[in-house]
């Protein structure tokens, strides 16, 4: 009974990389022609070019009605795979077979033109996404009602707020009903309410027997929506299996080794600033990997500052074992970003998580350092560095407490 609707065979995609594109200006091309008239230009296999494979020999089969989550780190090839399957870009090697009409949603408001009215844009965007005129006409009222923009139908979209544009864009996309839907998580932008509506709509479509491929970083939405999961790693399909099995494997794959109170990193002279050592300690300054909800968690980060590091900032995530990012911290959150004033040499920065913030559970510390002014945006990427455990020892509910945070609230009677 299970029909194959997508089948990828040895799909590969190669990109050219490097700062210098083969030719950026016509004059250079003409010079190229003049100086090397017999050089092969077709596939650019000349030795001077740097290429990399964004996808390598990817094989998988999707059956009718499957909802497949595509997971993997940044740059693993997830978006490239979606682009190949929606035929936006061609595979460099291999082939894939598709049965049925494909609709791809890789951004909200695809094809919108700012000068046109809401009404005109519904038709334009609908057509761009692959709907026929009569299909749009038939669902027009539904689309407008879903977006809640009845009053602004004849206003140019340029006068819409960004929220209104996103609502209209999603309303059009949500009423596209192809046999196979390809969705990128970028759809889930906007406020929480909108994200919920997005996911609800995708889940409705999923439960109505449509085939869906969805890329997401949120393991929680993947597990809620999907029955299958494809895990990409460096462009290769590492695992294609039942969603729970794949997500479990994925999450444990990058979990830091347990019971390490510190970690040191190999020196790399090319980085202007580098995290060389990270350690965990309790309020007495003793190394620790296990904490009570009622004590502060200390994280010491030692840096090697080598050059001017203006514009550098740090980014930290506390990721819970199920993949949920519980807390994000940015060194620019508070008025002064310490990195702007660090002098060259060995420097230490301390972060303290106050008591009763993180709930019980296991956490990983994910770290990234970047600069908008550096040649390569990423300055240092330690990634998941250390793991620690938090337990709720003092309250009656203890580790049976649900939710995410462990903050205690007072239940206070007030005089009427």
């Amino acid at each position, binding site marked *: 009974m299970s029909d194959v609707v997508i089948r990828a065979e040895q799909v590969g995609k190669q990109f050219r990389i490097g700062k210098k*594109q083969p*030719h950026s200006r016509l004059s250079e091309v003409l010079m190229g022609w003049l100086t090397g008239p017999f050089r092969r230009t077709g596939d650019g296999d000349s030795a001077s070019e740097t*290429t990399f494979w964004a996808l390598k020999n990817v094989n998988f089969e999707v059956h009718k009605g499957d909802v497949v989550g595509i997971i993997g780190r940044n740059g693993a090839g997830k978006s490239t795979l979606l682009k190949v399957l929606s035929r936006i870009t061609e595979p460099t090697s*291999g*082939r894939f*077979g598709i049965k049925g009409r494909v609709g791809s949603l890789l951004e909200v408001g695809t094809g919108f033109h700012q000068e046109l009215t809401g009404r005109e844009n519904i038709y334009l965007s609908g057509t761009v996404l692959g709907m026929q005129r009569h299909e749009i006409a038939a669902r027009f009222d539904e689309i407008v009602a879903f977006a809640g923009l009845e009053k602004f139908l004849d206003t140019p979209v340029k006068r819409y707020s960004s929220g209104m544009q996103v609502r209209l864009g999603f309303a059009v996309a949500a009423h596209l009903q192809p046999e196979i839907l390809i969705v990128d998580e970028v759809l889930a932008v906007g406020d929480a309410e909108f994200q919920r509506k997005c996911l609800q709509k995708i889940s409705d479509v999923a439960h109505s027997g449509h085939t869906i491929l969805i890329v997401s970083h949120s393991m929680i939405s993947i597990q809620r929506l999907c029955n299958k999961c494809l895990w990409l790693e460096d462009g290769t399909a590492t695992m294609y299996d039942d969603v729970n099995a794949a997500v479990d494997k994925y999450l444990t794959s990058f979990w830091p080794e347990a019971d390490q109170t510190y970690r040191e990193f190999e020196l790399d002279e090319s980085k202007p600033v580098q995290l060389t050592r990270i350690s965990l300690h309790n309020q007495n300054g003793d190394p620790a990997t296990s904490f009570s909800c009622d004590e502060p968690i200390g994280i010491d980060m030692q840096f090697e500052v080598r050059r001017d590091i203006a514009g550098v900032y740090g980014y930290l995530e506390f990721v819970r074992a199920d993949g949920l990012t519980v807390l994000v911290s940015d060194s620019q959150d508070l008025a002064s970003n310490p990195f702007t004033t660090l002098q060259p040499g060995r420097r230490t920065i301390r972060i303290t998580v106050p008591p009763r913030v993180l709930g019980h559970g296991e956490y990983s510390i994910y770290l990234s350092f970047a600069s908008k002014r550096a040649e390569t945006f990423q300055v240092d990427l330690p990634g998941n560095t250390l793991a620690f455990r938090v337990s709720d020892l003092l309250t009656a509910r203890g580790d049976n407490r649900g939710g995410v945070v462990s903050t205690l609230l007072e239940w206070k009677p007030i005089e009427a």
Partner: protein
Amino acid sequence: MRVDSQPRASVEFPRMSTNTSTEDLTWFGRRTVWDSINVMEIGRFRSLIWQFALRDLKVRYRQTLIGALWAVIQPVVTMIVFGVLFSTLDGRPTTSGLPYPVTSLCALIFWQFVATSVIAATQSISMNAQLVQKVYFPKIILPLASMIPPLVDLAIAAVVLCGVMIWYGIGVSLQILWLPLIAAGLFLTALAAALWFSAMNALYRDVQYTVPFLISIGLLVSPVTYELTAVLERMSPGLQFLYCLNPFVGLLSLIRWSILDTPFPPLVPLVVSGIGTTILLLSGVYNFGRMERLFTDRV
């Protein structure tokens, strides 16, 4: 240096079920040049062509002060300027004996179509770069759709030409029936040029600055403000040959022949120009097909 040559073989996954039907899948691999001009595929996207054309028309007329009038002003002013110029210099731009405004305007409105459509189409892919990277459609749709608004301009200008012809008391004869075919040829030739320029401009932005220059040269080296025979009789054979290689020479002369009943253009220049037209068409289509795969990765 190459970071990675041919990728290594990856894990084969066990098939989910053994008796699955896969023969009714449509397969896609590397695109060939001919995929780009697959007429069936383009036909499936015809509603998108109309939507893009409609978008361009609406946006243009909403942002301009004189709107459709612009389509008339340009050829008329060009006609007046060249008319005055030729009479001041004591030139002889015609051999047919027709009033200059009629013979000049007749070719000018079609040249105007070529000029505006090629310029619009040149930017069609780079201006829709965002779209090209987010949805699939045959890319040829973009230059094609951007040539439709200039067609509307042509229709408006044609009304003015009719008025001028009536004013001078010039009627049409039976060979006007050839006009649709000749005009279709002109459309295809302009499309061929548009395919060249739009594909090149997607990768090299300086093309869009070059095209207006080529167009203004084109006006001078095509029989637009003068008649073909008027220049040919004063050229050496070598120059004649070079001149006639211009793919638009034959078509513009034929347009004049079909509308104004001027003598049929001389055969040899017609054949030479026809060869030019064919080369432009085939190479334009081929080059577009070859470059199309680069648009998404490198626009």
